[in-house]
């Protein structure tokens, strides 16, 4: 069980062609077993976000191979990857990205409604639980556009958790949070990995956050060091 891999990336190479051809990732390989809480650190511009987008299957323009839960995802069709993400990956973006017209609750519910594994009533209940977990129960019915940056980021975290994904990826998920909320999110993540064997890969600039996690992976100039 412990040896089972949640994520396996082999020799990932990524180029950007604008404004000039430029190699961002230089043969990155990475293995994350199930239930591990991994922090990804490194200087700004070293390619952390780029790697996260590739690992989360959203960016398909790379060389190398990616498997999640033992399923090879490289070369799969966009629609397949979309429904795969919906069921298996929770993602918290570097900039929060909620749908502004919808309430916090609705934002959390949408990926679950899309997955349609539970009834709407159950989904609503679950969404309230996740918001509660992140201390946002009172904000549930507010439109996302009326929330503060930190609140929006926590709603995005709640949204990433709603489908109980095997892997939760965060690109600086606590970047906008104060220390109390950062601590809270850290505890939630730890609980998810310990109790529910979910896997977390989080980019962070917070050294304390990184040190407390199971493993710290450091990147430098497109390499893992």
């Amino acid at each position, binding site marked *: 069980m412990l040896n089972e891999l949640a994520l396996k990336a082999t020799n990932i190479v990524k180029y950007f062609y604008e404004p000039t051809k430029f190699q961002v990732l230089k043969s990155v390989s990475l293995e994350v077993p199930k239930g591990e809480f991994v922090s990804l650190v490194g200087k700004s511009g070293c390619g952390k976000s780029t790697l996260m987008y590739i690992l989360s299957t959203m960016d398909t323009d790379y060389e190398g191979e990616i498997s999640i839960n033992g399923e090879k995802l490289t070369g799969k069709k966009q629609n397949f990857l979309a*429904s795969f993400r*919906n069921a298996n990956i929770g993602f918290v*973006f570097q900039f929060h990205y*909620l*749908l*502004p017209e919808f309430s916090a609750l609705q934002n959390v519910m949408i990926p679950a409604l899309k997955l*349609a594994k539970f009834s709407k009533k159950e989904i609503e209940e679950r969404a309230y639980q996740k918001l509660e977990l992140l201390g946002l129960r009172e904000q549930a019915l507010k439109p996302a556009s009326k929330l503060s940056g930190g609140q929006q980021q926590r709603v995005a975290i709640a949204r990433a958790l709603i489908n109980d994904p095997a892997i939760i990826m965060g690109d600086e998920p606590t970047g906008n949070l104060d220390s109390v909320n950062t601590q809270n999110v850290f505890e939630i993540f730890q609980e998810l990995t310990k109790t529910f064997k979910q896997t977390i890969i989080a980019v962070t600039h917070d050294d304390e956050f990184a040190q407390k996690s199971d493993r710290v992976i450091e990147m430098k100039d497109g390499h893992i060091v």
Partner: protein
Amino acid sequence: MRLTLQIAFTQMMARKKQTAVATLGVTFGIGMFILMVSFMTGINILLEETMLSATPHIRIYHEVKASKTSIIDEVQTGAQFMNVVHHIKPKDEKLNVKNGLMIAENLRQEPEVLGVSPQLTSQVFYNFGPIQLNGSLMGVQILEENKLFDLRSKLVAGRIEDVLASHNGLLMGVGLAKKLNMKVGDKVTISTPKGTLKLMQVVGIFKYGIGAIDDVRSYTNLPTVQKILGKDSRYVTDISLKLKDYYQAKRIAQIYEKKYEYKCEDWETANATILVSFTLRNIITYTVSITLLVVAGFGIYNIMNMTIYEKMKDIAILKAMGFAGGDVREIFLIQALTIGFMGAATGLMLGFILSVWVGTIPFDSGGFLAMNTFPINYDIRYYIIGFVFSILTTFLAGLFPSIRASKIDPIQILRG
């Protein structure tokens, strides 16, 4: 509710103004279409009805033709002859339809025929003091004629039965009566082209609402005209027919022409010029309406494109959360179609209300046509056409932006 539907509606509710503007475009397009079609076809129907109220569906008469060959061509045939005859004139043929009354009787038995009225028409002068007015005198079996053209309802004075009761009773067109300053009971002397004079008495005045008839025609009993012209009691020049389905007139006329060997003219041929104006009106209606709808369609296209441009981030988030390209396309198509539905519904209402309003505007046709207000044709078919057309337009207008939205690569936008 379907998730895509819910997302589409929520987004539209958040941008009520743009949604309203796009909807109004369709509303006006469809509204104008309904108004124009109702009005134009209203005119067409009025004209057609007016025309048919006085025109037989089929008129059978003896067409006088100059013979193309002279008698000498029939006698001296062969290559050795060259016959030259200048300006051949018609023979002094009788203008009547031989056995007209028999034919009329025959036609009455035909299942497609509604009514038959044999007639004898003569050009006459109406003598009014020193002035002579040109006109026509139509000898009819007045009750048959009434069956065909509902003469009774066209009478502005007098009674039909009074024509039957007297041998010189006259039903006079309202325009003619005005020119001659005639009232019911007044007498008028008419003269035929052959010089016969006859004193007649006006017993009724009719009005078809068509100047070409009201200004020249009078009706009297068939035998009276036969006597004035010195013809026998079987002599008739025209047979007027009404059919059960007047759109069959052309086909049936051809059959009768073969059968009776007389000219059978259907109403469409007789009124070809008016029918051309029908076609023109229809063309105008559809061109203008389609233009309006295309403009509305472009409005929707623009607004959809703008919406999608502004919603790039949201589309990227949806895709990142697991929405497929097809889901995104659905969301925006739903928005376009919703605009189409709302625009169609409000447009049909607007069109109906405008039609009702235009239908109350007084219009004076100068006595030419029997109408006081603009004619409006309420036909559910045009409402269905308008509805289908607006849905189709908005669907096409929304389709291309929606496809574009479905192809947006989320990563491009999320990277910023």
